[in-house]
């Protein structure tokens, strides 16, 4: 339930971004036949979106705990109050923010560097490109499990073997650095996306511009700063926007590795809502959390669109 409502939030956010609702409305007024024709799908969409949203709002306003069946009396904004003052909320909000920002920074920086490196021709470039993209196609649960059991495991993991080889004590990643470990896994999944977008963008960089810069006395580093990076500004904005929307709702990686722990150390908002609803069976509070998450996602999307969207629609 909470995840669906979060998705609904994302949908509304993207609607706002494209601003497509206005002209559609006008057209509808113009043509009655058109109205009749589209009404079934509009209705279906309304039901699809509005019913879960309405139910979420309704649940968030009543006392509804599966462990204490009884009359679900109306409690006003009590659920919201408890969710916001829950000790998990501050940690969840902070972890969400930290997770999103770290993964964005890592994937954009690594994505730019890899895209630039792969742009110069070398033997086997095609295969390297495919391999660079492939982590993106692995299911989050699977990659989280691979990382947990094969790479980061303190006893049987590859990294532990490396540590032992150099005579160091293996690190128990999910105990000592749980959030960092999750950031590592999520970054590994999202770097390929950044690489894919930026690699494609690199191909549209005008070769003559680089030649001109070389004649102007720019070395490889100056060309990177003054020509390549400005050229990538727009695709980087796209990467940041799309990644943010998905990173706000990271769940599977946390669920399969740390389960939100130790304590609240790896609990983000999506996981907090899940634990309210399904571990504590408090549907009312989970719904309130879901709505709060929708609001947060919308705020984030709105700010991103304000910051980056202008840059995107402003055609060269």
């Amino acid at each position, binding site marked *: 339930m909470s995840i669906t409502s979060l998705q609904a939030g994302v949908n509304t956010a993207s609607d706002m971004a494209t601003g497509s609702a206005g002209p559609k409305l006008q057209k509808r007024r113009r043509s009655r036949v058109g109205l009749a024709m589209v009404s079934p799908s509009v209705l279906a969409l309304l039901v699809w979106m509005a019913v879960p949203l309405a139910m979420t709002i309704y649940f968030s306003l009543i006392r509804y705990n599966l462990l204490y069946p009884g009359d679900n009396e109306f409690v006003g904004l009590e659920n919201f109050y408890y969710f916001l003052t829950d000790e998990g909320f501050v940690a969840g909000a902070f972890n969400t923010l930290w997770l999103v920002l770290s993964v964005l920074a890592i994937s954009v920086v690594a994505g730019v560097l890899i895209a630039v490196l792969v742009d110069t021709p070398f033997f086997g470039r095609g295969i390297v490109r495919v391999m660079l993209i492939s982590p993106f196609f692995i299911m989050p649960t699977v990659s989280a499990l691979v990382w947990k059991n094969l790479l980061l495991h303190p006893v049987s993991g590859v990294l532990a073997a490396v540590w032992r080889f150099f005579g160091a004590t293996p690190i128990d990643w999910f105990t000592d650095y749980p959030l960092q470990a999750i950031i590592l896994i999520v970054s590994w999944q999202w770097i390929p996306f950044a690489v894919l977008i930026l690699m494609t963008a690199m191909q549209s960089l005008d070769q003559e511009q680089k030649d*001109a810069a070389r*004649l102007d006395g720019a070395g490889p580093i100056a060309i990177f700063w003054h020509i390549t990076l400005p050229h990538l500004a727009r695709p980087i904005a796209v990467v940041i926007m799309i990644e943010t929307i998905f990173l706000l709702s990271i769940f599977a990686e946390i669920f399969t590795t740390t389960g939100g722990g130790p304590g609240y150390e790896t609990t983000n908002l999506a996981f907090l809502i899940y634990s309210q609803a399904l571990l504590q069976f408090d549907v009312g509070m989970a719904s309130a959390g879901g709505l709060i998450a929708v609001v947060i996602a919308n705020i984030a999307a709105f700010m991103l669109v304000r910051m980056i969207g202008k840059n995107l629609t402003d055609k060269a």
Partner: protein
Amino acid sequence: MANLTIRNLKKVFEGIEIIKGIDLDIKDHEFVVFVGPSGCGKSTLLRLIAGLEEVTSGHIHLDDKEITDMAPAKRDLAMVFQTYALYPHMSVKKNMSFALDLAGVAKSEVESKVSEAARILELDHLLERKPKALSGGQRQRVAIGRAIVRQPKIFLFDEPLSNLDAALRVQMRLELARLHQELNATMIYVTHDQVEAMTLADKVVVLNGGNIEQVGSPLELYRHPVNQFVAGFIGTPKMAFLNAQVKASDAASVTVALDSGPVYTLPLDGRTVKVGDVVTFGVRPEHIQVADAGVSEFSVKLDVTEHLGADTYCYVKAPNGETLTVRASGDYMGRYGQEVSLVPELAHCHLFDAEGRAIPKPGAPAQAA
């Protein structure tokens, strides 16, 4: 000073020789145009001079300095690209000052050089704009401005006008000629358009398939093409080529019988051909007159006529199917299919031997191909 010397320059791309041994001297203040059909290696030659491509073999000297393997920025050359290659995120001013900023030139000096270039190119009011807010001609000028501020020894232009519309192209052509005078600079200019070559150049270098066909002033190329390729490439409409056979030849004249009928005696040095040789008779449209049928022995049929106002181009067909173009006066009225006869000015006609080499005029020093 800017004397460029190129010796036996070769460039191989992926096992294919694109530049096949070029020897060329370019003198200070000269406006040199490389002209040739698309794909003949003009841009490659220019990029070799600029240092943007690595030389396979051969040498390039600028004055007394060998620059064959020098980094592009150190060569004291500036290039204007066909696509302008402006930096899209920088203002016009920043585009022009980029090279100087990188070189660490003092701010005040950069400022004065940029505003001087902007004045010459009439870009003063556009300095704060981004390239995308400029028209094609303005972008072109910014690209030239970027070259000017560096005060290079040689300016390199790679088809700088080919992205402009026809009217603007003529205007920019004049501006380039003016700029050459004003800056008193050495310029190398690449184009596939022989009109640009003829109008701008002090010296034209005709390239074909990675080789130099001929080097000379525009009029030299027009009057004395050394081979059939140059003869066909320079001049519009193209020179007509008709098959012929040598009937008699001596040091001062060659008599040929055209396959299409007439027999002509041309004032050429015929010692390199003998009777019976198959040759090609070349005549430019402006060196033939159209006359009524029966006036001369060269009778042809009118095909299409094009009225350009001042001139009329008549496309005519000889009895053996060969076609040629004739330039007549603007008020010439010919009907499609009409029988007419042609009178070539034999002093301006050319003969080419079986290898395409021109048969020289008497007394003219034989030019190396």
